[in-house]
């Protein structure tokens, strides 16, 4: 049924992962950086599921499920931090979070 080679799935997953990483590196808006993190985790999930399908191993689906929960928890904390940062700084510009340095 699956005629698409595994390497295609992996390429897609890796691409998503890389796009997410680039987002975290380049976007100053903390919300968008958070979204990029989610894209990374989605890439990971895709890789997991692709491997699972190609190995015919369903138990990893449970692992991906747990990863989803973790991702959600991470977003919750991240957004909370963004809000707190906004209150504190009046901005969620990551560039402005650079008082500590050296």
């Amino acid at each position: 049924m699956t005629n698409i080679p595994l390497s295609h799935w992996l390429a897609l997953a890796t691409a998503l992962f890389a796009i997410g990483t680039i987002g975290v590196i380049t976007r100053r808006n903390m919300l968008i950086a958070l979204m990029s993190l989610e894209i990374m985790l989605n890439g990971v999930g895709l890789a997991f599921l692709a491997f699972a399908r190609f190995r015919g191993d369903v138990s990893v689906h449970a692992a991906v499920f747990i990863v989803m929960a973790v991702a959600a928890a991470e977003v919750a904390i991240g957004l909370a931090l963004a809000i707190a940062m906004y209150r504190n700084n009046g901005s969620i510009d990551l560039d402005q979070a650079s008082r500590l340095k050296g």
Partner: protein
Amino acid sequence: MIKETTIQSLLYVIVFAPLIGAIINGVFPRVLSRRAVSIIGVGLPAISFVATVLALVGFLGLRSADPTYTAVSASLFSWIVSGPISVDFALWLDPLSIVMTLVVTGIGSLIHLYSVGYMHDDPSYARYFSHLNLFLFSMLLLVLGRSLLLLFVGWEGVGLCSYLLIGFWFDDMDKAIAGKKAFIVNRIGDFGFLIAMFFLIFALGGSLDIPSLRAMVADPTSIFHSNTAMVTAVTLLLFLGATGKSAQIPLYIWLPDAMAGPTPVSALIHAATMVTAGVYMIARLNFLYVLSPVSMAVVATVGALTAIFAASIGLVQNDIKKVLAYSTVSQLGYMVLAVGVGAFGAGIFHLMTHAFFKACLFLGAGSVIHAMAGEQDIQKMGGLRKKMPITHITFLISTMAIAGVPLLSGFFSKDEILFSALALQHSSGTVAPWLNKLWFGLAIGAALMTAIYMFRLYFLTFSGELRSPDAHPHESPASMTIPLIVLATGAALAGYLGLPIPGKNLLHNWLAPVFAGGASAINNTGSHTLEYALMGVSTVVALAGIGLAWALYRGPWQHVPAKLQESLAGLYKTLVNKYYVDEAYNAVVVKPLIGGSKLLHRWVDAGLIDGIAVNGPAKALAYVGRTARRLATGDVQTYAAIFAIGVVLLVLFVM
């Protein structure tokens, strides 16, 4: 009759009594009265000294009962058992460590007593005694430790205490920096020591336990005899440690600066005990050193060079403690020369006599400084002979002893070293034979200079008229003069323990079992006639030096020093600036290190772009300058970017 078990208990008392003193005075500095602090601070070292004497008596008893008896060992607990290494926390009392322990506790106790008077008005009185006792504890651990590792613990401990005590008057930033300098320079040496221990274990399969190591080395089929290169490496690395601790070229630079500490500290740590640790360590490992003629030659050469080098600097110093400091470096050079030529007994002998007269000199100097209200410049002193009779007499005796005036202690010990330098040769004879003549020449030159600068110091300080009218010198209190008298007596008489009469040399006979292994590799090419002839020579040298000093600073040639100073301005300046060694270190070691770290700092901070910007076209420069400022890390996304760059480097590297 004292039993062996009793001696073992005494060993614990010797080592731990000062520690208890350190803890009490360190933990309750505000609770105790000054009197209580003094009693604890002086009493516990004294107990340690008494215990040492008792241990000596017991040891003599055991040895007379059984002439082959060599050492008492007391193991407290099994310290490290890890893989092939098993080290006990064990103490080891043999003739060598008895001599060292007597010097440390005896002179240590006297200096503690002296400190009661000297430090009387200091606000941090308890802390001072606490540190001093802690030092004594570390030093005893160094001397009595049975394994190299325990020795190393003591080795680092004395360094730490030295650091704390040099910087004792830390209100003055220079002093705190001097302490740090001492510690860091010492650590360079310690690095050698540590690496040497690793090599000893892993390259040579040796043990850290000194008696076991000795037994291993004694086996002529062992690797120690086949792998000479590694033995040379190990001994040279250990010697690096010794150059740090015993202030030899190239690591001597810390010792003169260490004079920033209170004078009794200089007397105890930087003259009598700690700085001799390197000499002690080489003597302790004599069986290892004699396996490598190269190492021996290096040790001796470094010692001889240090002796003359430091003496020449001492000629022109004007700070009373600096003169003594360079003198100490020079005398340590003698000791190192002695152990380097295989005259381990002579090295220890000089160590002992030096401990007496140098401690006495420092304490005398302390007494002078005390009397002159902190003045240390000898150009501003003079005429103290009448005002401070006891200090004067004791100082004079010690000065004569160090200058090598016949029949005083320094004469005998220095003479033995001069003789050894000329006459002792390594049996394998692989190193150039002319080296002996070089060592002898350097040593005799240093002896002449010693006589000159010591008597220059004496004449400028004690004779003539007082050159600073505001000072009102007075004799010091009894707690200060009593140690002076005891030490001066020692300085006069200690030499008779090592009279150069065959078979009657008490110290040599006493130490013979310790150096038995090492002595076999050393050939004595000299005769007793030569030895007595050399005594004549050195007497002449000493007297010539004294005469010259008298002539230059008291006698008819008083204008000459100034003239010399003028005509040999370059040399004089070089000497005053101590051959610019500190400056050289600064330029070669310190600056590049700090510069390098700053460079890296800036590089990471400002990014690669900064560097490119320097040469870039003007427009780009402006842009990049802004960019570089923005790039200044602290930006979380820059970190993320570097994280990704790190990963990509790994990825490209691995795949």
